[in-house]
């Protein structure tokens, strides 16, 4: 599992820096998800440094936190990072959690360098697909391991909508109809009866933002 992310256009990131009149920035990445996604690992941080420098921005250093979203770990590590202190701002090549972690730890602006896209599975290097939308109450037990909340564009729980054509979803011919996947899997498992009970609407209090969890409480 990874938070799948992609870099924002370089011009956008450069725009953030220029809008603030910043001359010196520190570039950070993440050793976990953003490294997997090739959006904010060591190589991408280095490339970002070079591109910024080519635009006349001084890059005071780079750091890849592992992971960027661990508040205490990042707190102790950023203090030791040479160059972090003297920068006017941080360009953070991590997901939204990574950016917010840093923003809680430093007073200077933290520019988000990535767009966080989804929680995804790595099919193979560089190929990521969404399968879980963290709805707060997992439905996978009765659906043959296919998430109707995520794989179905409408996130509906009581069977197919009638919008499938040749097994593909009405929103895109390259997306499978989740309910045909669920049907095929349940049929194979001799569990088609799972499709019969009327499933109640989701309880969205379970996905009320912002969510938090303290293990053991």
């Amino acid at each position, binding site marked *: 599992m990874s938070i799948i992310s992609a870099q924002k256009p370089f011009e956008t990131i450069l725009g953030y820096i220029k809008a603030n009149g910043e001359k010196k920035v520190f570039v950070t990445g993440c050793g976990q998800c953003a490294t997997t996604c090739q959006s904010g690992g060591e190589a991408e941080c280095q490339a970002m440094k070079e591109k910024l420098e080519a635009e006349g921005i001084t890059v005071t250093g780079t750091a890849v936190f592992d992971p960027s979203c661990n508040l205490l770990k990042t707190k102790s590590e950023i203090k030791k990072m040479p160059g972090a202190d003297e920068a006017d701002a941080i360009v953070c090549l991590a997901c939204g959690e990574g950016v917010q972690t840093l923003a809680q730890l430093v007073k200077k602006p933290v520019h988000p360098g990535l767009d966080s896209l989804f929680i995804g599975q790595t099919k193979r290097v560089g190929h990521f697909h969404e399968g879980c939308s963290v709805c707060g109450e997992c439905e996978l037990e009765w659906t043959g391991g296919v998430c109707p909340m995520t794989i179905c*564009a*409408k*996130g*509906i*729980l*009581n*069977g*197919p*909508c*009638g*919008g*499938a*054509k*040749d*097994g593909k979803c*009405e*929103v*895109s011919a390259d997306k499978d109809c989740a*309910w*045909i996947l669920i*049907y*095929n899997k349940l*049929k194979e498992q001799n569990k*088609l009866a799972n*499709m*019969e009970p*009327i*499933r*109640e*609407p*989701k309880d*969205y209090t379970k996905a009320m933002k912002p969510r938090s969890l303290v293990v053991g409480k």
Partner: protein
Amino acid sequence: MSLRDAFASGKFVVTSEMAPPKGTDIHEMIEKTKMVVGMVDGVNVTDMQSAVLRLTSLASCKIIKDVGVDPVFQITCRDRNRLAMQGELLSAAVMGIENVLVLTGDHPKAGDHPEAKPVFDFDSVSFIKMIKKLEAGEDMTGHKLEGAPKFCLGTSVTPKMDPLEPQVIKTKKKIEAGAEFFQTQGVYDMETMKTYMDACKDFLGDTKVLAGIIPLKSAGMAKFMNKNIPGISIPQSVIDRMAAATNAVEEGIKIAGEFIAELKDAGIVHGVHIMAIGAEENVPAIMRAGGLIK
């Protein structure tokens, strides 16, 4: 006679469809409605079909009811959460709307506001269940209502799909939830209708089924629909007839009429739902071609 009474009477029921205008000019909608007054048993008003912005279904229902037809208030799960859905249903009831047709709804991606947030707080099955609860005098969470609505409650089904079984299972759930009538996706051959009705025969009970009729306007339209519209399968023989016709629109009306007559004779459905898609003025001609009116 209301749509509910028409179903109860055992007659071959005919409903037609009306797409509200994209804008405030309701003149054409009123004129097209006048053409079917006293002719059809109900006029189904679409809820921003294909996710294209239009006048709302509820306002349009009120307008055509005042013209003199029994409106069927179509409402999808696409644009409203459960609070808004229930509010719409209560509003429909106080406006004298007696029929509701619930749908999951097309995804906004397909329409003219693809950036819109898709709601889909729940689906058509849960929606039907919720309406039955309103009718019983309670909202979804069990709070008592001061006055309860009463509807003739329909939904849509798709008789042609590969695989068909998930659609059949869903049909069963819709009945269990409380659907009183179905209108189907457009159908063009008896075999499709028979196969679907046969698959549902064990649980259909008193549920009324209106076969969907979409008159063709050209062979090109038929080919386009086969390729792009889910649940549509137009036989090659029908496409050939359309291609050979000197007046394609008239041929489309004739084909629709013949199929309606065939369905009526076969006695396998309780009526038809004519979706003329922008050519509502052809509804009387289709009914005439089907031998339903003189």
